[in-house]
C-alpha cells in the first residue's frame, strides 16, 4: 500500500513532464496545424487527464474507503490542476514571453547592445501578434473594424490581477483607456 502511494505521489509530481511528453507526441501527429499553440498545451493536459485518472484510481484511489476517497479525489484534482497550470505557464513563457526571447537573442549573438535589442521589439508587431492569438483563443472578436471581448475569462483574470497588484502595493498600471487608468 505504502509503495503504491509513493508511486501515486511520484506520478502526480511528474505531471509537467508527462504533459510535455504528451504534447511532444501530439505536436508530431497533426496538432502543430492548430492556430493557437497555447490551445495545444491545454489539449495535451486534457488528453492526459483520462488515462491518468484511470491509472491513479487503479493504483491508489480505488483502494480507499468512501471518506478517504473523497479527500484523495480533492487532493489529486488540486495537484493535477496546479501542475497542469505550471506546465501551461512554462509553455506560454517559451511561446510569448519577451524576457525569454530577449535572453535567447542576447545568448545567440554572444552579447548585444541594448539599443540593438530594442530595435527588434516593435510594439505594433507584438500587439498584432497578440490580437491574432486572442482571436484564435476565442477571447476577442472583430466587428466592423472594432475589437470586442467575446469571452469574459481573460477580462476577469486581468481585473483580478490588477486588484492583487494593489493589495501588494503596486501603483495602478499605465495603459490608458479613453482617459481612465486601466492595466
Amino acid at each position, binding site marked *: 500500500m505504502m509503495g503504491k*502511494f*509513493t508511486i501515486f*505521489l511520484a506520478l*502526480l509530481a511528474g505531471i509537467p513532464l508527462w504533459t*510535455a511528453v504528451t504534447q511532444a507526441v501530439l505536436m508530431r501527429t497533426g496538432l502543430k496545424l492548430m492556430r493557437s499553440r497555447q490551445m495545444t498545451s491545454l489539449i495535451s493536459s486534457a488528453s492526459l487527464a483520462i488515462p491518468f485518472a484511470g491509472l491513479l484510481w487503479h493504483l491508489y484511489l480505488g483502494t*480507499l474507503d468512501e471518506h478517504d476517497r473523497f*479527500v*484523495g479525489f480533492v487532493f489529486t484534482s488540486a*495537484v493535477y490542476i*496546479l*501542475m497542469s*497550470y*505550471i506546465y501551461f505557464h512554462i*509553455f506560454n513563457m*517559451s511561446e*510569448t*514571453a*519577451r*524576457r525569454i*526571447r*530577449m*535572453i*535567447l537573442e*542576447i*545568448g545567440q549573438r*554572444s*552579447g*548585444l*547592445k*541594448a*539599443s540593438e*535589442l*530594442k530595435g527588434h*521589439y*516593435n*510594439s505594433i508587431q*507584438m*500587439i498584432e501578434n*497578440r*490580437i491574432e492569438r*486572442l482571436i484564435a483563443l476565442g477571447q*476577442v472578436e472583430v466587428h466592423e*473594424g472594432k*475589437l*470586442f*471581448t467575446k469571452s469574459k475569462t*481573460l*477580462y476577469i483574470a*486581468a*481585473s483580478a490581477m*490588477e486588484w*492583487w497588484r494593489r493589495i*501588494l*502595493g*503596486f501603483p495602478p498600471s*499605465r*495603459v490608458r483607456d*479613453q482617459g481612465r487608468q*486601466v*492595466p
Partner: protein
Amino acid sequence: MNQLVLIIPVAAFAICMVIHVIVWRICRPAKRVFALTGIFILLPAALGLSSVISMRHGLIHDPFSLMDIELAAALLLHLSLAIAYIATYPAFEAISPSLAMVLAIGSEGISHKELLSFFCDDELFEPRINDLLQSSLVKSHGEKLSLTSGGNLLAYSFILFRTFLGLKKGEG
C-alpha cells in the same frame, strides 16, 4: 487519505501569502523571485523539516500524527500552490500586454488603431530588460548586454524544451 494532507498545505500557503503581502508593502525586495522562493518554499520547508525532526525525537508534541508519506503528500500540494503562484507573479508586476489589451477593449469595444496607441516601445521593452538585469540573468558592460551563467542555463533550458516539443523559438 488523511484530510490534514489538504488542510496543512492550504494553511501554510495562506500564512506565506500574508508574510508576502506584509513584506511587499513594507519594503519590496530587489530580487523578487528569489524573495518569493524564500517565503513560499524555503521558509516553510525549513520550519516543516525542523518540526518533523523535533517531533520524531520527542522534543515537541506531534499534534497531527501524520506518516512520512502523508507529509510528503502535504509537501507536494504546498509546492504545487507555491510554484503556481511564483510562476504567475511576474504577470502582477509587469502586467502582460495580452491582459492589458483585454481590459482596454472592455465591454464597449475599441478600434484597432486606438488599441495600438495605448502601447509604446519603451513601455513594452524597458521594464523587461530592467527585470532581467535585477534578476541577474543579464549583465551589462556599458551599453553591451550579455548573459550571466543563470541566463545561459535558462536560455539552454528553453531551447531544449522547445526542441523536444518540435517547435522553433518563441515569437514574443
